[in-house]
């Protein structure tokens, strides 16, 4: 069952996002400024299917690719794990096969949400490399990374409330399985990319990785 359906309707909204029509996202504000001159953008949404996100991006003239990479990690889906020498090993390539057929170097934007907080550390480099390879020069990856002091939040789902605000649902009670990723580690994960960090008051950093080149 998709995660968003499993959550039901009674879950509490994130306190920051629930207060109004969504939480302002400094990273989104920044990146839409960069993309303002691109009329028909191509966007990958790595989160669960969100009608709101789709509606907002269609209005912006986007071609939208959707592949829910978040839900299998939240569920710790057994399909993507195997036992080798009495150890559980993540099947990274099978997991990345969840992505639809997207021509290399064609995306303007990848919305990856909290994907890197959920993926096993040994898979992070391949995940980032794969999505980075789909970006055209000047393309942007958008991530949410938890701060080290935020212990739980696996069970959240994020979506666009507007081009520059984000919404979240889920109780955020399930503990993160892996240590928080530092800014330095994030820079190492995206070699060649320009990493920009935006601090927020939600316990999460907003990270954008800009692929150099292009006309931006």
């Amino acid at each position, binding site marked *: 069952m998709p995660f968003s*359906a499993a959550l039901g309707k009674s879950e509490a909204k994130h306190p920051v996002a629930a207060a109004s029509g969504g939480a302002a996202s400094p990273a989104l504000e920044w990146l839409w400024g960069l993309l303002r001159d691109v009329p028909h953008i191509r966007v990958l949404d790595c989160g669960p299917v969100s*009608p709101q996100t789709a509606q907002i991006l269609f209005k912006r003239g986007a071609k*939208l*690719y959707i592949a829910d990479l978040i839900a299998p990690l939240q569920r710790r889906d057994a399909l993507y794990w195997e036992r080798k020498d009495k150890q559980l090993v993540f099947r990274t390539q099978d997991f990345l096969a969840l992505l639809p057929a997207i021509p290399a170097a064609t995306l303007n934007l990848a919305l990856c949400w909290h994907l890197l907080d959920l993926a096993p550390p040994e898979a992070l480099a391949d995940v980032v490399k794969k999505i980075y390879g789909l970006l055209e020069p000047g393309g942007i990856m958008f991530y949410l990374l938890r701060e080290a002091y935020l212990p739980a939040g696996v069970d959240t789902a994020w979506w666009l409330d507007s081009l520059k605000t984000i919404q979240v649902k889920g109780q955020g009670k399930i503990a993160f399985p892996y240590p928080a990723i530092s800014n330095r580690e994030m820079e190492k994960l995206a070699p060649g990319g320009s990493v920009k960090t935006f601090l927020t008051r939600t316990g999460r950093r907003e990270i954008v990785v800009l692929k150099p080149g292009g006309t931006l």
Partner: protein
Amino acid sequence: MWWEKEKKTDLPPPPPLVAHPPEPVKPENPRMEPSMPETIRRDIPNASSPGQALIGRSIVIKGELSANEDLLIEGQFDGTVNLQEHCLTIGANGKVKAQVNARQVVILGNVTGNIHATEKIELRKSGSVTGDLASASIAIEEGAYFKGSIDIARNGAPEAARSVAVSARSLVEDYDK
């Protein structure tokens, strides 16, 4: 005795042994669908409406399918579907592996393949699509599974954008009720 006889004659007549129940009121349309609100009718995926052809649950077809009427698929279909001027509904039990061309496509079941609709594609929450969607208007319900791309046909860009916005909003509103 004389007074007992008189009492018997005062009793009311017994009720008839065979009662005739009132005739059941027949609805003008037994399906009741036209009088149902849209939100209720939408939740009856197995009901095929009059004028809509049906591929039933036990039917398995491989090949090329063309039709000049609306079609509901509750069975399995592999191949190509062409309903240029009509609506294709893939019911909750339907499993389709096909390239689909239609005016409108409503998905409650499972589809693998690319879908092109001149007017509208609706992916309901029970629906699952792996493939590419192209249409002037697309509505997706929360909870649906989708892997692929969505392309909005832009013959007149503002019009296309408006129709998408309206359809997506209406589905969200229905879902919230």
